[in-house]
């Protein structure tokens, strides 16, 4: 069932993809027999065929994921988006400390373990990556190393 739904969604996306390929993409002038639109057109046709076959014969019934797990996955997604959102404004250290602490707590560490781990990873990670390896990370309120 999920299989069919997913294939259906992919089919919709593929049809949009094909619509763009068949109507919008055009080169004003070209010397080659195949323009920029031909390859996406071929891909679209092949995808529609294989998606129809997949919808005809699905083989995965359900995600087999329980409700608490779904909630956990949703929280992880929110945490990740928050981490991405805060990455530049707060800088690597603070964003990482916050993210790691909550993430680790979510995965059944105690608050103390989580906080210690978060601070260690944030500070140590920043020092190693920017100081030792010379990578570019957002420094936030702290002066750049």
């Amino acid at each position, binding site marked *: 069932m999920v299989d069919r739904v997913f294939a259906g969604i992919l089919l919709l996306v593929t049809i949009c993809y094909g619509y763009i390929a068949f109507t919008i993409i055009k080169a004003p002038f070209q010397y080659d027999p*195949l323009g920029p639109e031909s390859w996406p057109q071929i891909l679209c046709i092949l995808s529609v065929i294989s998606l129809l076959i997949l919808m005809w014969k699905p083989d995965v019934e359900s995600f087999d994921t329980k409700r608490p797990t779904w909630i956990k996955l949703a929280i992880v997604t929110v945490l990740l988006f928050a981490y991405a959102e805060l990455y530049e404004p707060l800088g690597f250290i603070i964003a990482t400390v916050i993210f*790691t602490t909550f993430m680790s707590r979510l995965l059944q560490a105690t608050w103390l373990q989580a906080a210690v781990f978060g601070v260690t990873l944030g500070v140590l990670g920043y020092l190693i990556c920017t100081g030792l390896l010379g990578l570019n990370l957002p420094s936030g309120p702290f002066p750049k190393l």
Partner: protein
Amino acid sequence: MQEVLSGLSTGFGVALLPFNIMLVLIGCFAGTLIGALPGIGPINGVAILLPIAYSLGLPAESALILLAGIYYGAEYGGRISSILLNVPGDAGAVMTTLDGNPMARRGEAGRALSLSAIASFIGGTFAVILMSLFGPSLAKIAVTFSPSDYVALMVFAFASLASLVGKNAWKTFMGALIGLMLATMGIDANTGIPRYTFDVPDLLAGIDFLVVVIGLFGMAELFYLVEQQVSGKLKALPIDNSFVRMSDLAKTKWTILRCSIIGFFIGILPGTGASVASAVAYGFEKRFAGSDAGEFGKGDIRGLAAPEAANNAAAGGAMVPMLTLGIPGSGTTAILLGALLLFNVQPGPMMFMQRPEIAWGLIASMYVGNIALLVINLPMVGIFSRMLTVPQHYLTPIIAVLAFIGVYSIVSNPFDLYLIIILGIFGWILRKLDFPLAPVILGFVLGGLLEDNLRRALSISAGDWSILFNNWKSIILYVCALAVIVIPALLNRWFKVKKPTLDVK
């Protein structure tokens, strides 16, 4: 032969530089660690560490030596979690659990670990030797390939992918198509027309290869680990003092040799890697043992040596098409191929001539790496086994932090951070629905190449499609493509060979 020797001397000149030796050691050590971590396999390890290796500013050959070290190191370390935990790090290590774990449970963990280390070493070294012998001649043939031959070659690659990887061939095919479609985003190189950019400036250059790799293999893995975490605690079996005996080696020497050969040649097939190789090798040895096979699955040393020799040989074999044809032989080598492109090195037949320090340097480093792995693994296996019990609440956040560091330090664009999360969710869904992920990355890496060659072939023929079938090289390749689809189907019917049950990455 002359050429091989001079190539090897160039290669060892590069690989034996102290800095590069250090990178081999770091790569092998990190790889073994990653392989030993339950649930994280070679492909995730290489995916998560690739951007960091890239932004270190190493020269191309050093970066590749490091990444390749992580790759075969992880292939090597995968056996530790298979044997002690009964949890394979990736699909290539599934078969190792069948006999490795029963041995550990009856108190022979040390013997199982040391025997499998030696089998892995022989498989790996065997593959590098074959690679140095065959690589250059294969490259010489490949130099003469025309654009239409390349199209045929890639059709062959996708055919072997669809027939050998995953449970449902249509899902594998669809995975490859998703990768190919993702690759069409961005400005078309031939005409300068933007495709599927939706006027978002961040998409003009297409989706960055690193973003796709980290999203599909790093972030998706993270979601998968979070999901699995609820399902109880893992307990590692203790390592005892038992050690491999000379009689074990005498008993398994032909098994190891046969499986090395099987593994190497399956690894060469474009698209198929360690997972298929170890499954086929295990099945073959079991059948080969005949009436003597009663112990297989209960802790037979042959059943342990066979998949280990094969998956390490396959890791080497998978490098061959990547280096000589520019077509990756597995998901992980697809990532290595993308890494070469990042360094502006065009992988393929010309690499042996134009950039011998990279092609041969990599091959030579694998000789060094295999020895290093054996030396690291025999005495230090206790350290790696301690990694098995690293709690998930420490491991999982580290993956996210490493992925963010990797993406941000290269492009410094917060937009890509959102993109990896979205791709991660997408990858997780694909994985849950039994779509193998390796074809997606293969499609993404090969998409541009396939389209370019198709368009070039048709401009040579002024639009006549028959050019794709009018020379013997392409016809042979199409025949191979057909064979790789038909033969396994027939073999399946004859022998009822079981494919690996884990999804093939």
